[in-house]
């Protein structure tokens, strides 16, 4: 388990450990009863095209600001105890982790709602772009719901 205290919202090149991030979030409160985690990973296929690899880029400062906004709003609006959001950038292979959102609540219901809202909001508001490399070449992906 990592002993360094890291910010709860991060954009980073390196992979993350889901277990370490959960254990870090658990330290927020002894009253956490339910954690809901969304983990997005690199799929091999998109609309029938075979993907060789993915590359993510972001708008520094703005992307972090939007993720911070999502975390603060989720804690306030859904009455959860805490939330972590981590998104990777750079080259990502098939099967690798891309994005992690953890919502920690006293009970499970609010954690499910907050986690599902947060990933939808991330896709809507956060300046991060995905480039897919397929057999046909490179494609900047348009938003998908």
């Amino acid at each position, binding site marked *: 388990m990592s002993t360094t205290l890291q910010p709860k919202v991060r954009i980073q090149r390196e992979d993350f450990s889901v277990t370490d991030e959960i254990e870090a979030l658990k330290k927020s409160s002894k009253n956490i009863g339910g954690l809901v985690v969304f983990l997005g990973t690199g*799929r091999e296929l998109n609309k029938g095209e075979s993907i060789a690899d993915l590359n993510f880029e972001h*708008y520094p400062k703005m992307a972090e600001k939007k993720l911070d906004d999502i975390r603060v709003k989720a804690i306030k609006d859904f009455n959860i105890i805490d939330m972590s959001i981590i998104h990777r950038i750079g080259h990502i292979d098939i099967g690798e982790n891309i994005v992690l959102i953890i919502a920690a609540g006293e009970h499970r219901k609010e954690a499910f709602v907050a986690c599902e809202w947060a990933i939808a909001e991330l*896709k809507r508001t*956060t*300046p991060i772009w995905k480039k897919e490399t397929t057999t046909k070449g490179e494609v900047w992906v348009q938003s998908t719901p």
Partner: protein
Amino acid sequence: MITVKYFAQLRQMAGKEEDQFELGPQITLDQLSDAIGSNLPKIGELVRDKKIMVSVNFDVVASDHIIQDGDEVGLLPPFSGGI
């Protein structure tokens, strides 16, 4: 001075990450799109036709937003973070 940042496909189209313009204390988005279009006509057109989102100082703005000298403007293709 106004800094304009290009991202993703726009960065590839522009062939650079940013431009800087001296355009006076306050300008409209249309004036900025003309300045961008003088070197990068396709991108200038996308901005003028409101085909892409624009951020000013890290927040998305409406098309009537007035840009101040010193602002950082981001030209933002549709986001595709998450999965």
